[in-house]
């Protein structure tokens, strides 16, 4: 009797759940084999010395200790990356929002403008664009040719450590197209009658922006800020191409991901690189958690 019940429970559970799990089978293999497994493994490797050829050697927390006490390059890469994130993300979002607001006035030719502004962000991650950028900001590049028209002798932006990181920030801002499209979609969600009511009450344009547009747009701002920040942390190709894989001049473009790449695939210090990766994961997780926790104080939700 008991057994009969249990078999039927099993077969019912199987019948109810098997299809879902079968459809998910490829995803499950990928999730456990290529995501969860590797995350755990890299956590283990971060406590070892590992050169890929001999077995990992347990060294405890040495890698993490070294990062903070005895590795100027780590600190440099941290500084470069944070500087990049702090300046590129807000500027990019400001441009995206500004242009979206302009376009949202019911401009004629909106689809054309939108497409033109979007093009750079579609192409931007490509190696070709990094090559172009290196040329634009070279000593004899296009930017200095322009400045020369006004009699200004520009420096070699790329090879001057004071400006090199800024060329990458400009490259990132240049790709404001996709957050702009998301802002445009968000702006269209704002009910028009709110503005009509406000304008009948005599509210000025700027007041309407601060009191209606921006508060109602905060969910989109929040979303864009998170996505762009995580992307900025992960940025790799432009710095690699522009500095020829070195992060120079004087480590001024040594992005965190670039440093990690060097440690792992040039010096084969896989254990140390794993520790770097885990620290990056921690940073991204902390940032995300912090954003979500503070979001209730500034992100406006309808319900």
């Amino acid at each position: 009797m008991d057994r009969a019940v249990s078999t039927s429970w099993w077969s019912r559970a199987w019948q109810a759940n098997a299809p879902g799990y079968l459809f998910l089978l490829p995803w499950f293999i990928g999730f456990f084999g290529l995501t969860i497994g590797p995350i755990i493994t890299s956590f283990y490797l971060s406590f070892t010395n590992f050169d890929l050829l001999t077995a990992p050697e347990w060294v405890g927390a040495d890698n993490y200790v070294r990062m903070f006490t005895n590795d100027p390059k780590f600190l440099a890469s941290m500084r470069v990356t944070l500087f990049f994130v702090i300046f590129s993300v807000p500027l990019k979002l400001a441009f995206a929002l500004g242009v979206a607001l302009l376009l949202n006035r019911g401009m004629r030719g909106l689809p054309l403008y939108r497409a033109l502004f979007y093009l750079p962000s579609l192409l931007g991650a490509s190696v070709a664009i990094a090559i172009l950028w290196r040329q634009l900001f070279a000593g004899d590049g296009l930017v200095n040719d322009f400045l020369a028209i006004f009699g200004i002798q520009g420096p070699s932006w790329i090879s001057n450590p004071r400006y090199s990181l800024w060329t990458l920030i400009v490259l990132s801002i240049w790709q404001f197209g996709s957050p702009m499209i998301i802002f445009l979609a968000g702006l269209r969600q704002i009910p028009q009658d709110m503005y009509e009511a406000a304008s009948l009450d005599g509210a000025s344009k700027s007041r309407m922006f601060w009191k209606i547009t921006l508060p109602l747009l905060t969910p989109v701002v929040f979303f864009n800020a998170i996505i762009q920040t995580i992307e900025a942390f992960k940025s790799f190709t432009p710095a690699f191409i522009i500095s020829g894989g070195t992060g120079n001049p004087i480590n001024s473009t040594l992005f965190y991901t670039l440093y990690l790449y060097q440690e792992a695939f040039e010096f084969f210090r896989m254990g140390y690189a794993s520790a770097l990766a885990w620290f990056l994961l921690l940073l991204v997780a902390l940032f995300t958690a912090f954003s979500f926790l503070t979001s209730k104080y500034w992100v406006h939700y309808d319900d």
Partner: protein
Amino acid sequence: MTIDAPSLTVVTEDSAGRRLRRSVGSVAAHALLIGASILMLYPLLWLLSASFRPENEIFSGTSIWPSSWSLDAYFRGWSGLQISFSVFFINSFLISILSVIGNLIACSLAAFAFARVQFRGRKFWFAMMLMTLMLPGQVTLIPQYVLFRSMGWVDTILPLVAPKFLAVDGFFIFLMVQFFRGIPKELDEAAMMDGCSWWRIYWKIMLPLSMPVLATAAIFTFIWTWDDFFAPLIYLNNMQQYTVMLGLRTFTDSTGESDFGGLFAMSVLSIVPIFLFFLIFQRLLIEGIATTGMKR
């Protein structure tokens, strides 16, 4: 809400002035936007024109109109490395197309399960999938490399392509789930009544109705794979297997300093496929971003 009479008359009296101000404002806005578009696209146009210039004219000022046109740089660049760019283009196309196929199959299967099929733990696994979207790839990079190396996959395209058949690009699962949820449930309920299996519902109802989202996923997969630099950099060391992006990088390292024309010409060619997608499927791309908030 009530509107009092005086303020209404003020509005009508003011309307002519208002219209004028509006049109001045709109001219100013257009001027601003046109200026910004030119500023933004100028570098691209310059690159294009530089690739058509004779070698000695490449760095002759800010103009984007060459005094004479020449295709020399394209021929030089195409065979500027030991291995010709035809090989790199074939490799890039192969990797991109296989990735598209993998993503379409694996992500749509997973998305169908998350959007439609009832099973225990669905919410939990969906949340796990969303978590992977936030994950920086670096944290899985080294163990994946060790794994693929132990399987003898380094220096083949398998590490770049095989993961796509395991739905590792959660972003597209998310994109498809959003779309599938918009398809009326009555359709699969009716099919269920008629004795259709989940598989038939997926294959005969869901997929045919989901062409827009499948196309969007296919285009973005193609573009992102085409553009990808990091994975090929790590897994492909043999020049015979290089993608276009790796070819370009080698070009900058070796001959780039002497042959800027060739480098620029190959740079232009490397973005032509993406640009074509942009021209043809612009609407789909922009809608895809607007509805899901894609990063690029």
